[in-house]
């Protein structure tokens, strides 16, 4: 146990480093900050809610920089797309926060936030899961036919629809190999920003599917590009929370020490898998987070009287981090085994390179 004087609590250092490490792996792999996992975990460790958000945001900013540098080296960032989206994201976050304040005045913010979280996350899970299964089957079919398969297979028709909107200026995103109206990118940033600001999260889990299914970027590019957004939003959030005195730097240092290693591993792990594998992990993350939000929603609706629900939510939050981390590491391990021509499960062949 270590004493954190700013937060006024004692918490185990090892757990903070471990949380940083696991969320670092997940964040570097699927391109999210992981606030929806870290903030509840920090509250469970005893940090007050406002301080959990502050510590989370500051650690996300640091981790985002490490992941972004690594993804830039891997050629996974489209700067045109990232910078076009930043303006829309910032405006969207501001609108989202104002919407939140409106519901707060009505006195129903907790229920509305949780219900919206459940609807958004479950909807994204369903779409991502169905599309990814289709893509997985399509790769298996191509493998049987002996065709050459690249890093990405995507079966959604939505990107073509949005890429055909003839609204000037049209931008050429060279790294992503996408030609699309700039307004589509700004609008995607704004809508995901509204949701992020309203739900009080970074929004990576909304932006990555949006970049893939609306703009038409490959999953690897979507992950790298979203991490650039996270550096901006996390950096701004860290600054605001620091000014308000919501950050215990000792806790941030412990978390970042784990996250820096985890983020490198997670970013490098993307080089062992095809796009659908990243989307599978993203969808698993979404369904587990949905289950956690449902438990918390029922807990709030029952007047916070059923304690066992709160306990299940805690277990699910911790379990989710471990689960995603194990899945990513095992995929890399299977990929290495496949390269050495050793036995791997059948479903792994088409997901790894």
């Amino acid at each position, binding site marked *: 146990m270590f004493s954190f004087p700013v937060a006024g609590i004692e918490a*185990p250092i090892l*757990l903070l480093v471990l949380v940083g490490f696991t969320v670092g792996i997940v964040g570097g792999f699927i391109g999210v900050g992981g606030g929806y996992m870290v903030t509840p975990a920090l509250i*469970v*460790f*005893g940090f007050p809610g406002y301080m959990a958000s502050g510590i989370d945001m500051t650690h996300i900013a640091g981790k985002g920089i490490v992941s972004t540098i690594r993804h830039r080296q891997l050629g996974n960032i489209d700067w045109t797309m990232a910078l076009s989206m930043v303006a829309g994201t910032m405006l969207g976050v501001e609108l989202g926060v104002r919407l939140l304040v409106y519901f707060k005045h009505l006195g129903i913010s907790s229920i509305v936030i949780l219900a919206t979280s459940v609807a958004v996350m479950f909807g994204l899970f369903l779409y991502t899961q169905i599309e990814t299964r289709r893509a997985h089957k399509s790769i298996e079919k191509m493998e049987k036919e002996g065709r050459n398969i690249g890093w990405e297979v995507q079966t959604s028709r939505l990107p073509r629809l949005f890429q055909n909107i003839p609204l000037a200026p049209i931008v050429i995103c060279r790294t992503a190999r996408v030609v699309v109206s700039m307004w589509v990118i700004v609008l995607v940033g704004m809508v995901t920003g509204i949701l992020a600001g309203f739900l009080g999260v970074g929004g990576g889990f909304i932006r990555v599917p949006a970049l893939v299914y609306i703009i038409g970027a490959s999953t690897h590019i979507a992950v790298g590009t979203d991490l650039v957004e996270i550096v901006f939003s996390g950096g701004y959030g860290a600054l605001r929370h620091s000014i308000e005195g919501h950050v215990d730097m000792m806790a941030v240092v412990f978390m970042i020490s784990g996250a820096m290693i985890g983020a490198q591993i997670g970013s490098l792990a993307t080089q062992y898998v095809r796009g659908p594998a990243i989307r599978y992990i993203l969808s*698993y993350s979404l369904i587990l987070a949905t289950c956690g939000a449902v438990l918390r929603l029922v807990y709030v609706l029952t007047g916070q009287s059923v304690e066992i629900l*709160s*306990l299940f939510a*805690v*277990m*699910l939050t*911790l*379990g*989710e981090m*471990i*689960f995603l981390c*194990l*899945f990513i590491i*095992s995929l890399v391990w299977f990929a290495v085994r496949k390269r050495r021509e050793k036995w791997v*499960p*059948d*479903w792994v062949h088409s997901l790894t390179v």
Partner: protein
Amino acid sequence: MKKLINSMLGYWILLLVISLGAAAVIYEIWLRGNI
């Protein structure tokens, strides 16, 4: 075990059980008093 791992759903369930078990151990060791 090989049959279980060979199915994606089976592998998913196996990892989930391991993860929730690990979460329960972490809870017992460090967090019981905090909640």
